[in-house]
């Protein structure tokens, strides 16, 4: 398989999502700073959302909204899969709120005199 053939098979949405997932997982596992862990989780979420979205995209089809491009009778033949889009739609806002919760937890730990590094909470391990 030539390199060109390999590149042409890559799904751009899923590939960029996969890269974001890997960056996010590495950030969560390898960075000690609590704030960086929160941002890494956010990056991870974005990647997961992109990967989920990519599984519903079908080349050459239109968005799952009835208009002049597709009416009710041709919907199933002309539209992309709406289920992943519905899943991701709510996940984005939930992700935002969870990031805010993580960050406020980190701020609270800092304000109580702890460090921003997860290493300084070794006694919290179970």
């Amino acid at each position, binding site marked *: 398989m030539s390199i060109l053939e390999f590149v042409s098979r890559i799904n751009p949405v899923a*590939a960029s999502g*996969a890269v974001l997932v890997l960056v996010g997982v590495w950030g969560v*596992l390898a960075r000690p700073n609590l704030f960086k862990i929160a941002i890494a989780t956010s990056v991870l979420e974005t990647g997961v959302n992109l990967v989920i979205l990519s599984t519903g995209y079908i080349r050459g089809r239109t968005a799952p*909204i009835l208009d002049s491009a597709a009416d009710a009778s041709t919907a199933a033949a002309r*539209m992309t899969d*709406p289920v992943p889009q519905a899943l991701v739609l709510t996940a984005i806002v939930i992700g935002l*709120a969870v990031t805010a919760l993580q960050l*406020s*937890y980190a701020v609270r730990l800092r304000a*109580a005199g702890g460090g921003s590094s997860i290493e300084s909470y070794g006694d919290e391990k179970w």
Partner: protein
Amino acid sequence: MMRRVLVFLAVAGLAAALLPLALGTGVPEAPGALATAYLEDAPGDFGAANVVTAIVVSYRGFDTLGEVAVLFAATAGVGAFLTRKRLGIGDAEPADKPAATEILVTATGLLTGLLVMFGVYIFLHGHLTPGGGFQGGVVIATALLLGLLARPESKLSHGILSAVESLSGAAYVGMGLAGAFLAWGFLDPRVLPLGRIGSLVSAGSIPVIYSLIGLKVGAELSGILDALKGDRE
């Protein structure tokens, strides 16, 4: 050293797991049976032009109620963590924050009304266009964020925020119960006439429910922004 190896192994394993997806395997040529049923039935069942909205608000409406509850829990958590007492600020006068620039203050005055209107437009047209309660709620929260940036010393009215949030949440559950008693199931939008596909007043109670979600999400995210300022009592 051991930890680095483990992290590398975890990332490499995940990369191997994601590789088939990135190469486009698993992407079907046509939507699956469930998606096909949604695409074919949504216009007839609920009169919603936007099939994604029909899934989010009606077919999987119970999940959406749960997700709104998760959002509420996260907001409550942020509000509980970031009070003045917990942050150790106490009653001390806040340090003088630099005043916002005139550009920001003027732009805020011009944009706030437009942003709120745009947010309301997005959630009212959720059953017709790509949009809905979650997106519209976020746009409304950005209007309040602008206001907080332009006047750092201002405080959002807690009472109004909680009133909007709890009333819209209760009305959401109320619409769901109305569906259970007047139509065929919990959150069934057929309690109101379905109307003609593509008109603003159509799709039964879907626009009503999505507007309530929009108000709730807007109030919750505004509450998060207010709490993140860190000067709550």
